[in-house]
Each structure stands twice: as C-alpha cells, then as structure tokens.
C-alpha cells in the first residue's frame, strides 16, 4: 500500500471534501456575489494558508538564530517558497473574483496593497538569499531580514486595513467575511479547507526540504 503518513491522507480527504462540498453545498444568496461566494473557499483559504506558512518561516528563522542548524534555515526557506506560491495563487484568484464582482482587476484597497507588499517582501527575501554565497552567512543574514521584514509585514496586513475603509468584505461596513458574518454552512467547508490546503503546503514543503537535503548529500560526495 502507499506508505503515506496519516496527515497526508487527511490532506487528500479534506481537499476532496472541500472541492465537492464547495460546489454542492448551500451558500447564502447575497446580492452581486451570487455563486461566486464559493470562491471564498479557495481564495481566502490560500491567504490563511500563506499566513500560516509565513509564521512557520518566521518561527524557523528565529530558531535558526538561536540554534544555527542547517535544518532550521532550510525549513524557513522552503516554507517561504511555498507560502509565496500560495500568495500568488491567492492574488490571482482574488483578481479574477474582483473583475467579476467589483469590475476591475485591481482597486486601491488596503488589503490588496498589503498583499502586494507581502509578496514584495518575499521577493526581496529570495533576492537577498541569492546574493550571498557563503551558506552560514546566507542563513544568518536572511534570518535577520526575515524576522525584521515579516514582522513589519504582518503588522501592515493586520493593523492598517482595520483603520481605514475598504472595499474588501468585512471592513468598512461591507457584508462578508468576519467571524460573525460567515454563514454556518460555509464554515463547515471553510475550516476544513484551510486545514487541508495548509497540510498540502506542508507536504510540498517537506518534499522540497528532502530534495534539498538529498542534493546536499550528493554534492558532498
């Protein structure tokens, strides 16, 4: 039988559940949004998964500074990569959704800007990693930058949108996503979706980490 860990099976089950229930399940019939609210299961899920992976990256960057093991740095790097992938998917799905409901691919909105800024920070992080040759130095410097930049980024994403009006659902009086607004039916699909996609992110991250370790092993021989 396929020797997969239990959480990988859980990931597969959850994602298929999301896919099927996401399309078949009942959703509230809101004006303008209509059926597109189902995109919430995927678009917002991507952002949540990205936030979780970003936190993982941050934690492992801190871990690296306290205990300089190559493993910690590898985890920090790979979780950042997968997080960036999810972030890109999140922005693309968001743009499609925006075009459909708001009429434009991009609007001047605090959350969107925060999202773009987050991807900028990630890109800068990878450019920095590429710029340093020595392995230990690279790990140390990029960990410092990661802690500095990601902390500020999280502040930027969380704090600023709350202070201003925004087109995004849940801020500035728009109906939509908040803990009190989210329909009970949608929650049944949404939370498993977040868990499923996060596990998927971790799975991909683990594969990448193993590949890197194997390459390292190969180089040393």
């Amino acid at each position, binding site marked *: 039988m*396929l*020797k*997969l860990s239990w959480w*990988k099976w859980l990931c*597969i089950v959850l*994602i*298929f559940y999301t*896919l*099927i229930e996401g*399309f*078949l399940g009942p959703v509230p*019939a809101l004006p303008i949004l*209509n*059926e597109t609210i189902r995109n919430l299961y995927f678009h917002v899920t991507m952002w949540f998964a990205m936030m979780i992976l970003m936190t993982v990256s941050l934690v492992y960057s801190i871990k690296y500074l306290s205990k300089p093991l190559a493993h910690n740095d590898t985890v920090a790097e790979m979780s950042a990569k997968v997080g960036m992938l999810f972030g890109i998917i999140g922005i693309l799905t968001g743009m499609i959704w925006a075009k459909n409901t708001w009429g434009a691919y991009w609007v001047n909105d605090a959350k969107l800007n925060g999202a773009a800024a987050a991807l900028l920070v990630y890109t800068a992080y990878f450019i920095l990693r590429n710029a340093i040759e020595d392995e230990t130095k690279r790990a140390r410097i990029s960990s410092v930058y990661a802690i500095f930049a990601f902390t500020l980024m999280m502040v930027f994403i969380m704090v600023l949108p709350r202070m201003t009006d925004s087109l995004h659902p849940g801020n500035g009086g728009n109906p939509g996503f908040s803990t009190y607004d989210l329909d009970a039916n949608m929650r049944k699909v949404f939370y498993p979706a977040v868990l499923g996609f996060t596990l998927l992110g971790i*799975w*991909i991250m683990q*594969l990448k980490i*193993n*590949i890197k*370790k*194997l390459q390292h092993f190969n180089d040393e021989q």
Partner: protein
Amino acid sequence: MADAFRQDGKIYVVIAVVCVLFAVLFGYLIYLDNKINKLKK
C-alpha cells in the same frame, strides 16, 4: 444563482473535472513522495 446549472446536472460535470484534476495532481505528489523516500534510504 446557478440553479439552472444544477437542474441540468451540469454541476456534476464541474465537480468531476475539478476532482479529476486534483486526483492527478495528488497522484503526482504521491509518486514524488515515494521516489524521494526511496532515495533517502
């Protein structure tokens, strides 16, 4: 809303397509997983 879609049964086509897509992706992921685990040993 997409009720017309559901009446025709077309919603199942959507779900089937999406599920097939993800099944293939997962198959690839599992294949990679096994290959890497084998290499690790």
